[in-house]
């Protein structure tokens, strides 16, 4: 076995461990929190009282207009000066969630607006309440529109979690840095790291296609009934 391949094989377990124990949970947790935040933000901006909607618009403006790395530094290194101290992992989850929330809120807002007004009226006309119409009539249709751009955000997030390395979270990229610093083989280690990220995001892309198919079953007219 050539020397470079041997190094790759030997460093695979620690890298995968870092991925499965830190990168993946960090991604899933941040996306879940971020998506919930994004949903609430979209709802308030579309249907909430004016002042509250303005507050959420300010939040989206602030997060989208500043670099993620700076936000993470502010939360982890800056806030302790104000007496607010987070452990590395919670700091990362908060930072990523706020970020995902801001971006997904716009996706969700657009997807909700993409459902024709007549669908609301049809739902009301059969006696559905606002909440029932939202849950049973509007959201399923909006989901079909929202899945591709949300998957975009998700895949960006997997890669962005490498920034958590600077908050001392021992995820994949930090593990790679650690090994590279003792083996002096950055080319091999970072290539391997890139491949692992590629693997993770490929798995997710496959998941996206499944979701799209599920929300869009009615669009596949080839499966005509009798």
């Amino acid at each position: 076995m050539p020397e470079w391949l041997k190094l790759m094989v030997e460093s695979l377990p620690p890298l995968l461990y870092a991925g499965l124990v830190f990168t993946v949970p960090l991604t899933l947790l941040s996306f879940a929190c971020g998506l919930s935040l994004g949903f609430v933000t979209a709802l308030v901006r579309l249907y909430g009282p004016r002042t509250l909607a303005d507050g959420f618009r300010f939040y989206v403006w602030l997060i989208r207009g500043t670099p993620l790395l700076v936000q993470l530094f502010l939360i982890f290194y800056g806030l302790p000066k104000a007496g607010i101290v987070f452990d590395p992992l919670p700091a990362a989850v908060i930072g990523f969630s706020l970020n995902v929330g801001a971006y997904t809120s716009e996706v969700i807002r657009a997807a909700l607006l993409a459902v024709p007004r007549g669908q609301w009226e049809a739902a009301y006309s059969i006696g559905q309440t606002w909440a029932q119409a939202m849950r049973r009539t509007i959201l399923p249709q909006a989901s079909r529109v929202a899945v591709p751009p949300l998957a975009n955000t998700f895949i960006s997030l997997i890669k962005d979690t490498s920034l958590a390395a600077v908050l001392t979270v021992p995820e994949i990229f930090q593990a790679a840095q650690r090994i590279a610093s003792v083996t002096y083989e950055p080319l091999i280690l970072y290539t391997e790291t890139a491949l692992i990220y590629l693997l993770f995001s490929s798995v997710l892309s496959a998941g996206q296609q499944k979701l799209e198919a599920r929300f869009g079953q009615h669009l596949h007219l080839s499966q005509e009934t009798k």
Partner: protein
Amino acid sequence: MIQLSHIDKHFGSQHVLKDVSLQVAPGQVTALIGPSGSGKSTLLRCINLLETPSAGQITLGDASLQFGHGHAQAGRQDIHRLRLQTGMVFQNFQLFPHRTALQNVMEGLLVVKKWPRAQAEAHARELLHQVGMAHKADAWPGTLSGGQQQRVAIARALAQSPGLLLCDEPTSALDPELASEVVAVLRDLAANKMTMLIATHDLRLAATLADTVVFLEDGRIVEQGSSRQLFLQPQNPRTASYVSTLKEGLPEAWQA
């Protein structure tokens, strides 16, 4: 009893319904005719409260609501109660595209009436049969023709046994052949004494289906009467000129 009294509706500075009073006889078909923008659709939408009237009173069966100054804003419960007295058929069908024909008809029974699934399904299948769509129960709306979609939409509107069926231009988005299959369903309902209020541009439909015809222009009722009287002996010159297009028919040269 279905009674509208002194209904007014403003959109901003626009006054789209002016003191409209109308009584719909139970078991009868009433057609609303009039030029585009005369307020036909708005009037229908006020009855099931997709629009809130600016003033006036709506009575449907034993539910009644008053609007305007001096009356408390209608509560959610009141609106819900009044709305369930009506079924609505839209010009563009507005079936739920992510639900099959059967699921579209079942939706209100399951979610609003909270019927058990088996019972809702049985009733929905019966209604689909009634509109001649039983064979397409499991089809997605996107795979159906416009006429078929509208028939499913009528079944959906009838699911919760409303006392009044509101049809907003039910055939306007359809070619003559597809329209005729929808008209056949409406005729069938009329024969079974379903109370209907139909806004339409199709004067032939109004003349052949309706017992009473109401001519609306510029938000006001200009004239109303039996369909025969309104089309053959209109009292108001404006009505006469509007309904004259119906009698013109084929080119003169063709009439042997």
